[in-house]
């Protein structure tokens, strides 16, 4: 019976391996994301604060023109583990970087005396302002496709950080034989199925899909304050790191708590096992 089960297990594993490779080979699959080499993805890894700051700059100067981050507040930037955390500030709201960044944005509000709509400089408690007055306006300005909110983007895609990095740095000329519609761009990392648009060999449908976002990043588009060369690859990595942090700003705290919890449970397990052995010592079982 064990022999039979072993053979069955081998068969199941083989089937699983074959079917997953099949998904890549056939049309309808996207290219597997390249690794951005992100240290924060490991169980104990933390974010590189300099990288988060660079990533924020890319987001602020490039992405935020079209993409909202509705769930982010300016104060979050100054929290422990965040891009502008400053141990000398008494609170994130008191953080000078946060206050400066917030004040750069104009926030819609009302005049507290007259009730007239006004624009005022942002404060730490404000959310990142949305670039569009409403969803329809955002879609209308972008060929009908609303630029998705980036607040939780790294959690909303499989292998999020590497996916964002690969997508942003993965644009290239579409393969010959692929019909690309107006206002669309080919990206091998985008989900989709290219079979209906492919005139070439039906056995070799290119991976990937169409995306409405043009390849916006160009070398030197952003000037980094720390002197890092702003290549497309570098900017893609940095902004992927920033979006990953923004998707889960408590990740570092979570992992550190986890180490403590596991250490406690390990000791507790040892003590309980010792008690178990002692209590059961004289019982044959």
């Amino acid at each position, binding site marked *: 019976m064990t022999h039979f089960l072993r053979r*069955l297990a081998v068969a199941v594993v083989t089937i699983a391996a074959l079917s997953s490779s099949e998904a890549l080979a056939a049309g309808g699959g996207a290219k597997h994301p390249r690794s951005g080499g992100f240290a924060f993805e490991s169980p104990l890894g933390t974010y590189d604060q300099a990288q988060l700051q660079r990533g924020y700059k890319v987001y602020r100067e490039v992405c935020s023109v079209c993409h909202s981050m509705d769930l982010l507040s300016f104060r979050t930037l100054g929290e422990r583990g965040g891009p502008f955390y400053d141990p000398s500030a008494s609170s994130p709201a008191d953080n000078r970087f946060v206050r400066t960044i917030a004040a750069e944005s104009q926030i819609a509000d009302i005049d507290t005396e007259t009730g007239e709509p006004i624009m005022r400089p942002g404060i730490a408690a404000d959310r990142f302002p949305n670039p569009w007055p409403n969803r329809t306006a955002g879609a209308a300005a972008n060929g009908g496709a609303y630029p998705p909110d980036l607040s939780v983007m790294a959690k909303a895609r499989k292998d*999020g950080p590497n996916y964002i990095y690969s997508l942003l740095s993965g644009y290239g000329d579409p393969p010959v034989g692929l019909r690309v519609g107006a206002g669309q761009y080919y990206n091998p990392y985008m989900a989709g199925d290219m079979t209906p648009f492919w005139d070439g060999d039906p056995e070799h449908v290119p991976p990937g899909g169409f995306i409405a976002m043009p390849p916006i990043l160009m070398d030197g588009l952003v000037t980094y304050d720390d002197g890092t060369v702003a290549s497309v690859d570098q900017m893609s990595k940095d902004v992927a790191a920033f979006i990953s942090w923004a998707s889960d700003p408590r990740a570092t705290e*979570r992992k550190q708590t*986890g180490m403590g919890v*596991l250490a406690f*449970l390990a000791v507790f397990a040892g003590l*309980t096992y010792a008690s*178990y052995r002692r209590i059961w010592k004289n*019982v*044959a079982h």
Partner: protein
Amino acid sequence: MSGHESTYVPKTGVEKWLDTRLPIVRFGADYLSLPTPKNLNYWYTFGAILSICLVVQIVTGIFLAMHYQPNTEMAFASVERIMRDVNGGWLIRYVHSNGASMFFIAVYIHMLRGLYYGSYKAPREMIWILGCVIFFLMIATAFLGYVLPWGQMSYWGAEVITNLIGAIPLIGEPVLIWLRGGPAIDNATLNRFFSLHYLLPFVIFGVVVLHLWALHTAGQNNPVGILIPKEREKKDTVPFHPYYTVKDGFALILFLMMFSVFVFFVPNALGHADNYIQANPLQTPAHIVPEWYLLPFYAILRAIPDKFGGVVAMFASIGVLFVLPWLDTSKVRSMRYRPTAKIFYAIFVVNAFILGWCGAMLPDAPVVPGMPSFTLFDGQLNSYLWLTRLTTLYYFAFFVVILPFVGLKEIPLKIPLSISEPVLKGPDAMSGAVPASPEKKG
């Protein structure tokens, strides 16, 4: 063990006063001193683990409900707000969302243990049936809860599952509207799902009390599967406390360590990335799948070409568990002594995993890519559709054909006279009460 006599003696005046009015301390003391077979292995610790899972879900759920907004405009953002801005909110939410998976891991092990050791057989039918009720309520609660974050899978999962109700002839359509609170899934649906998701865990709690009551009346089963005669009770049992509190406690801590690895290091590994995209009724996800623990039932649903037939099959796959005590004809409880049934049991476990795998795959996808195939009725033979059908067939056949038939034909191994016997003479010591041939069949 049934009719376990109370050994509690009230000591203080308060206890004496209380004992004649509401013997709640006696109840607790009797619970802890319950004579329990001393040969229970670690598979038997999942009952205690499950009770902790339920408490964890209820406690974290109550705190989540303090911050959650059951409104289609706000639900998604409120869950994110809990994880960003509520003190310890990320912990509460990740414990709750991963806790559901942990609950199901534990309940599946618990059920498979009961199946293997024949814990559903007389006199324990009520324990098993109440367990099935709990399992069914757990599925309902988990489904309702998964809708609450209002992500894409929440919305579309609710769409697919409520649509099934609409497939029921005659009453389907009105029931569907009643369930959704309108013609489509919307704010009314979310509101009532939240209300029911808060209610059902307390119903589960009530049924758990009945489950334990039945357990304490009929007595614990054990890996040998024999009833412990009154005269051997002293030799073969130990009081539940401290012997099993410490053993269950140790197993629980190991379980919590696995739980912690998920919560603290890979909190989203068991979920679907699409559920971090806010629900959009105008955009169907490429592939709608339920959470992993419902995949086998989702596979059974899709195995039947007719929609209503699929619904019937899915409910029947849970319903058949309720009548299991009367389907299994074997007088021997533990499969330790059932060489033939044991093989079918092993296949059943593997089959359940394959069913789950099928539930996650597209039905038309080939199982072995590139293998020549042909169309059988409505689909390629080499497709997940047909693999799902074969595994669904085995799932039902195991209960309604194999167990009744094997029970009649199988020659069981010799069963020890007492549960101490295999311990004292090594695991294979058989000197038997049941006159039977030790030869294996099948």
